[in-house]
């Protein structure tokens, strides 16, 4: 049945396979370095956000409606630049350069933090600029991850990346806290150290990550036109359109972490000092589960894992609505939320990368994340309004019903598209 192979080659191949599996769960060094860039950059940015008392300002002093607006703006801030950066990256085949520029942009913002001093408004402005840098780099970076691995390992690769990314997000605040313990009040030192991490992050992507996409030695005449038609063409693809619609619809009924934690805090009258720990708890679970869930998605089918994740979110809403729950259950909710992230975030990127043509992958990913970003903005605004005018339980009830219906519809829809386009099942 099998052609007789040279046994030496066989052993060599097997060994290489084992070696690469041992390292980075078989996704290759490029994904690892991209993850490292995100890890370093997230250490950098979270050192700053954890230090600035913006969190107090936002989550504790404002009315839910105002909070929703700012929360939504924060989430939607980078949306505008996403598609532009995607188009540029794809048109000139410059994913790596655009991603590097995005990382460098955020690194420069750290210096901005030093310059603006203690003016909160200016600080918020710099944080916003930092988010724009994030908007520039996210699409190209995800496209590079997708280009670095074979199709059947997409979700694992994204899992590796998200795990490292989340590890950075957790290390950042720890580092900042430790630094401030040794040098009380030395916010400038926090910004400088944060800047150093950002620069090393930029150096990793610029110098160690290889650009897998064919370079731009294609002559200018061969390049496809840069126009909004591309967006239309991509959205005309039924499998991609379905994914954009579904992910946006799901985002429309997604509560931001901050709202879930606020609800949790009120329900269980948690100590406000524990608030940052909630973020850490969820991030920890997300980090641990990102790779296993990615592998599970690659093996079982990404859409099952993805929709399962959103199902968990509905379960969380349900739990938050139940009266008389023991306080220990708040831990269970954190666990579910971490699991929800692990099952959805990277897996969705993998789902989209698989259906997008490689040439327009960055733009496609940007379109999808833009849809999600806008939907989240609406969700935050809507939830804030519902909470303010109807009360927290009513708002949660509406979101529970909404998310349950969306998950069920998405299930039917995804399966139908999957059958129609005769995908490989994943």
């Amino acid at each position, binding site marked *: 049945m099998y052609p007789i192979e040279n046994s030496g080659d066989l052993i060599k191949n097997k060994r290489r396979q084992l070696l690469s599996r041992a390292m980075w769960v078989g996704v290759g060094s490029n994904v690892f370095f991209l993850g490292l860039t995100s890890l370093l950059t997230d250490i950098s940015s979270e050192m700053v956000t954890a230090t600035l008392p913006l969190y107090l300002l936002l989550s504790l002093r404002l009315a839910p409606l105002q909070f929703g607006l700012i929360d939504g703006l924060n989430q939607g801030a980078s949306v505008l630049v996403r598609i532009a950066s995607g188009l540029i990256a794809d048109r000139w085949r410059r994913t790596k350069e655009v991603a590097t520029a995005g990382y460098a942009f955020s690194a420069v913002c750290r210096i901005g933090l030093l310059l603006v001093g203690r003016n909160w408004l200016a600080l918020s402005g710099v944080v916003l600029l930092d988010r724009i840098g994030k908007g520039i780099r996210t699409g190209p970076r995800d496209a590079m991850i997708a280009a670095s691995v074979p199709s059947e390992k997409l979700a694992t690769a994204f899992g590796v990346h998200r795990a490292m990314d989340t590890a950075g997000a957790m290390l950042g605040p720890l580092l900042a806290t430790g630094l401030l313990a040794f*040098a009380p009040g030395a916010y*400038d*030192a926090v910004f400088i150290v944060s800047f150093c*991490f950002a*620069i*090393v992050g930029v150096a*990793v992507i610029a110098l*160690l990550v290889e650009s897998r996409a064919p370079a731009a030695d294609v002559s200018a005449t061969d390049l496809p036109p840069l126009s909004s038609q591309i967006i239309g063409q991509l959205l005309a693809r039924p499998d991609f359109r379905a994914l954009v619609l579904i992910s946006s619809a799901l985002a429309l009924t997604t509560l931001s972490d901050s709202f879930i934690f606020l609800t949790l805090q009120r329900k269980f009258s948690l100590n406000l000092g524990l608030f940052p720990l909630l973020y850490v708890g969820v991030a920890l679970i997300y980090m641990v589960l990102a790779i296993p869930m990615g592998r599970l998605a690659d093996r079982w089918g990404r859409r099952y894992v993805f929709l399962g994740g959103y199902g968990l979110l509905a379960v969380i809403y349900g739990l938050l609505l139940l009266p008389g729950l023991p306080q220990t259950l708040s831990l269970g909710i954190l666990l579910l939320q971490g699991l929800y992230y692990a099952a959805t975030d990277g897996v969705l990127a993998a789902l989209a990368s698989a259906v997008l043509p490689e040439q327009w992958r960055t733009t496609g990913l940007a379109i999808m994340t833009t849809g999600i970003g806008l939907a989240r903005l609406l969700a935050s605004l809507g939830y804030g309004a519902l909470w303010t005018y109807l009360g927290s339980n009513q708002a949660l009830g509406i979101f529970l019903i909404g998310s349950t219906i969306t998950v069920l519809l998405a299930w039917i829809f995804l399966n139908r598209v999957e059958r129609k386009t005769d995908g490989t099942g994943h």
Partner: protein
Amino acid sequence: MEQVISHQRRQKIFLWIVLGCIVLAVGYTYWAIQRGNATAALIPEEPQGAALPIAGPNELAAIQNEHHLVFINEKEPYIGKVKLVELDSGSPRRAQTDLLCGRVHFAAGNGLCLAYDSSSDFVWVTVFGADFQPRHQFTTQGIISRARVSPDGRYAAYTVFVSGHSYNDANMSTATILVDMATGASLGNLEEFETWKDGQRYQALEFNFWGVTFAQDSNRFYATLRNGDKTYLVQGDVAARTLTVLHENVECPSLSPDGTRIAYKKLLSGMWQLTVLDLATMKETPLAEKESIDDQVEWLDNQRILYQKVDYDPPQWVSVFVLAADGSGKPEVFVPNATSAVVVR
């Protein structure tokens, strides 16, 4: 081949960048730690609203377990009454006492309070304990100036103007008295001590002493001596009852917690410049306070000092300011509407 070379070069550049970043990050952090707490967080502002009630013994004890500041509240409705606030805390505890003082100092559970009684024109000198209740009390006459308790709480020293009312006044006369905190008894006026200068007995009729600061062993102390139009830093010994002249033009010395430096006011063309004197090298460092300061400063830690001056915001109010002790930075309000700050270690 080009690819290989460029790959190796890229790795080399990467290593250099990492190295540079590590050096910058570690170096800057090290410097920030060394710089100490020059830009450190000040005491967070007191929440608005009704004033605190007078604290009970438990509240007092709770704060006294922590690193805290004792000062005189200059805010209604407790103007002139001693208050405590926790240090190094994002949401510090505060306790208001009922003790009325014009100048206060406190160490190791023993406090000294000077209070002017306008009805009798006396100054009440009160020795009090950790409960802020009077233990010993006696009266003297004059105008309240300085008070200091030794680090172990054994001795205290206070200064009043006997005639005149300012260190600017050429005809003023001061009395600086040592107090045994256990009994409340006087250990004598510094004018009764033997004074030495350049290895010889130094005597004059119009010696004036003020501004005692104690070393960690509580026996050694420093103070200002004025003879004629000159002031000197003297080092004293409580047990031996001697004083030795060390340096010229030093007023109201305050010894740093590590015992290496003295912060003081130096008379320069009619204004008092806050200055730090290194006792090992006798090197003087002017501090970044441009206004004339008439206070005996208190060390917040080994890098920063506290002192009172008029705060123009709100206008004409006295506040406690904090300033780096190495000549850098600029003064910042540490506790608004407060005087006589004491760091309790």
